[in-house]
């Protein structure tokens, strides 16, 4: 595809509006938007501002109440996804739509397979995909089975699939939410390369740094409207955050100073095998976490952070080493015992580990403390107490759209995390294990989580914070350690290290 210098924008939206009568939500109030040929437009906004609904309008999942969609200057009617694809739109969802047992080539050409003598021509399919991959700079081995590929590569398959369908406008919905930092960097480079071939890209995100890196233009949505449309470089992160939230946001959480207190959690000589997902295990990890302290664990995901947190939480046995809380040994204890000793655990995977999405909010809120006197007597659940606790949690943590008896599966990520944090901080824990507590959250929810963790620290907790976001670590931590290939480097005092120095340690496991 060559760079077409047409007057008309690739995509133009005029006054789109969508109201959901059932829920009474005006998801898209009045959106007009243009995307030029070869342009990368980032669409940002908090959760629930209508970004996804807008894209669903483009893909015929919903139908607009008012407004027009123009592609290359022509008004189009999009009834379903096939119409959208026929009009040159391609979408890469957060949840990949791939056939796991098929190869890359078989997935990319699903529905348009080449044939030879009536049979599927696998060799030809692989040749075509290899050619497409080369043209677009998305390096991939077409003969690999998709199930064997890492997430970042699977995403590449999705992008190739859209390109094979001749997509001239590619929509990426939260594409980096599932990626490791290095994969995300690669994605940004790929998107820029695609734009250079004349394809337009809409990049939905709420991570400001990557948006600044990838986009030519940044469109900010709030409450179903476009509230900002800025060229790259014309807005700082703080200004964008202000536009998104509509008020000043604390991008740097307040770290009230004060000396760390007595030692709480002590880990020494911890050795563990890697996780199934291919982590790096633990190699002789040891540290002490004190009260009134946030110990930040930085590092690229998969360097042993999950193993460390799970080992402390009692979810994973250690091959060697000791864990103790205030001098009481907890090595090899069950999760229930670890919790009753006073260790709370904000799990990285709130969808599967942190919460039961099929259970009601009150059941989730009480799920870690059923055995305590707070929620049961003589082994019988005290439903009134549980209900009152859930109601207070909803009020205190501003869990929007929730009721105690409804299942939590329909809530957004930020609200789910509020339930987890509300539950974990409620039993006055001594130590909080926070594993990626803000992953996938919007700016407002991130701020909320940061404030909650700071408050726990103020109240005397020791917080062990694992995060792949270096800025988060730097903003919240009193001391910072880095995990690299299963080893813990540091901890350093917060003022001994800066971004650059930590980045070096994260990348190489040592300083230059």
């Amino acid at each position, binding site marked *: 595809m060559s760079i077409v210098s047409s007057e008309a924008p690739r995509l133009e939206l005029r006054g789109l509006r969508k109201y*959901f009568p059932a*829920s009474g*939500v005006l*998801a898209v109030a009045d959106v007009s938007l243009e995307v030029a040929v070869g342009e990368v437009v980032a669409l940002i906004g908090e*959760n*629930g*501002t*209508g*970004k*996804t*609904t807008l894209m*669903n309008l483009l893909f015929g*999942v*919903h139908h607009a109440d008012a407004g027009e969609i123009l592609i290359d200057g022509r008004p189009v009617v999009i009834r379903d*996804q096939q119409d959208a*694809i026929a009009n040159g739109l391609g979408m890469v969802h*957060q*949840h*990949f*739509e*791939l*056939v*796991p*047992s*098929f190869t890359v080539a078989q*997935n990319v050409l*699903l*529905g348009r*397979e080449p*044939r030879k003598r009536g*049979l*599927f021509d696998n060799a030809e399919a692989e040749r075509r995909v290899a050619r497409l991959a080369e043209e677009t700079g998305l390096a991939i081995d077409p003969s690999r089975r*998709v*199930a064997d*590929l890492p*997430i970042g590569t*699977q995403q590449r398959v999705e992008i190739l699939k859209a390109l094979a369908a001749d997509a001239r406008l590619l929509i990426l*919905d*939260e594409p980096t*939410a*599932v990626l490791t930092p290095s994969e995300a960097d690669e994605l940004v480079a790929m998107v820029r390369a695609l734009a250079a071939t004349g394809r337009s890209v809409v990049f939905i995100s709420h991570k400001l740094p990557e948006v600044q890196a990838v986009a030519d233009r940044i469109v900010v949505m709030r409450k179903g409207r476009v509230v900002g449309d800025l060229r790259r470089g014309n807005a700082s992160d703080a200004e964008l955050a202000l536009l998104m939230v509509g008020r000043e946001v604390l991008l740097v959480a307040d770290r009230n100073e004060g000396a760390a207190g007595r030692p709480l959690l002590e880990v020494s000589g911890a050795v563990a095998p890697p996780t199934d*997902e291919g982590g790096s295990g633990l190699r002789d990890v040891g540290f002490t976490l004190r009260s009134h302290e946030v110990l930040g664990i930085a590092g690229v995901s998969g360097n042993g952070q999950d193993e460390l947190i799970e080992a402390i939480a009692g979810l994973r046995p250690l091959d060697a080493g000791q864990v103790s809380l205030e001098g009481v040994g907890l090595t090899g204890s069950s999760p229930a015992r670890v919790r009753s000793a006073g260790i709370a655990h904000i799990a990285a*995977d*709130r*969808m*599967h580990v942190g919460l039961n*999405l*099929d*259970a009601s909010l009150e059941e989730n809120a009480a799920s870690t403390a059923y055995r305590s006197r707070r929620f049961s007597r003589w082994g019988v659940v005290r439903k009134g107490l549980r209900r009152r606790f859930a109601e207070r949690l909803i009020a205190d943590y501003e869990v*929007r*759209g929730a009721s105690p008896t409804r*299942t939590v*599966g*329909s*809530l*957004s*990520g930020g609200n*789910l995390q509020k339930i987890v944090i509300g539950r974990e901080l409620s039993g006055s824990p001594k130590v909080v294990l926070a594993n990626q507590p803000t*992953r*996938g959250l919007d700016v407002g929810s991130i701020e909320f989580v940061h404030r909650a963790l700071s408050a726990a620290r103020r109240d005397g907790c020791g917080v062990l914070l694992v995060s792949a976001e270096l800025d988060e670590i730097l903003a919240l931590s009193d001391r910072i350690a880095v995990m690299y290939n299963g080893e813990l480097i540091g901890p350093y005092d917060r003022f001994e290290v800066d971004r650059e120095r930590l980045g070096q340690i994260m990348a190489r496991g040592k300083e230059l």
Partner: protein
Amino acid sequence: MNAFVDFLNSGIRLTTPILFAAIASMISARAGVLNLAIESKVLAGAFVGILVAAGAQNTTVGVVAAAGAGAVIGLLLAFADRLGVDLVVLAIGLNILVLQLTVYLMRSYLGGVGTFSPDLDPIPPIVFPGLSELPVVGPLLARLNWIVYLGFVLVVLVALFFRTRSGRHLIAVGEAPIAAASAGLPVARTRLWALVAAGAIAGIGGAYLSVGDLGLFTRNMSGDRGWIGITAALLALNRPAFILPAAGVFGFASAASIRLQQIDVPANLTQFIPQGAAFVALVLVGIRSTSRDDLTRLWRNSSRLRLRKRLRNPPPDPARASSAPSGAGSQTPDEHDRTTHH
């Protein structure tokens, strides 16, 4: 020597209906449906087949009618699938219904519950001039009629079909309905054709029992062959390459059990052999974690039996698929399709 050749011959004949049932189960499974109604399709095929064959005095017409009977049950399943009926529950009901329906019809119209033996010659074996007179080959091929050979041909045809574009689409629909739908494949229609084809094939397997082998019908003639076929398909990992050996395991287990009865091994022990083989096969399937996952996925696709309700907002797809591809792993929860429901 002679006894061994006889054993092989009877093993092949006993394998045939199981093979048809297994192919039917494999096609359904590959389309993403846990088809537990195969037993009823086999039985319906056996019953309708012999009735029509006796009426028309033509075995071929009977076999075609049997295929039609099975296809109708397949159509019923496909229709129920679209309505969102629980296919597992429906299949159990169908199995009971067809059995009792044949008993009722036999008692009311065919003069007895036990056996219906019309004036009909079973399908004659295919005689290969030259081969049939040979010492070992002759007895080996004795009493094998065209349905037996059709079974072998069908295995090859299905294997080839899975390499065609339509076959690839069927597999995609079964494994990742959302991906298939977003690629523009007709998910519901593909499932419908798969279930109809599976029904017809299972029906022919039933016709082999009545029209093909014996020329009579007995109560519950299918005798768990549908279930054993499902087991065989599981053992074959739903792959055409393994389907014949897997069905053969059960066919020859039955042959062995008959043979052992003739040499005074207690019947209650020998009759256990086929079921014992099925048990071992299921244990093997259960040990292999990917087969277990496949089975779980089929169950999720086909049944609504859960302890709890599922997510309130399932992904918007026409085929009510249960989950995104497993490779995608745990997703960050986000506004994806949740925004509008607050």
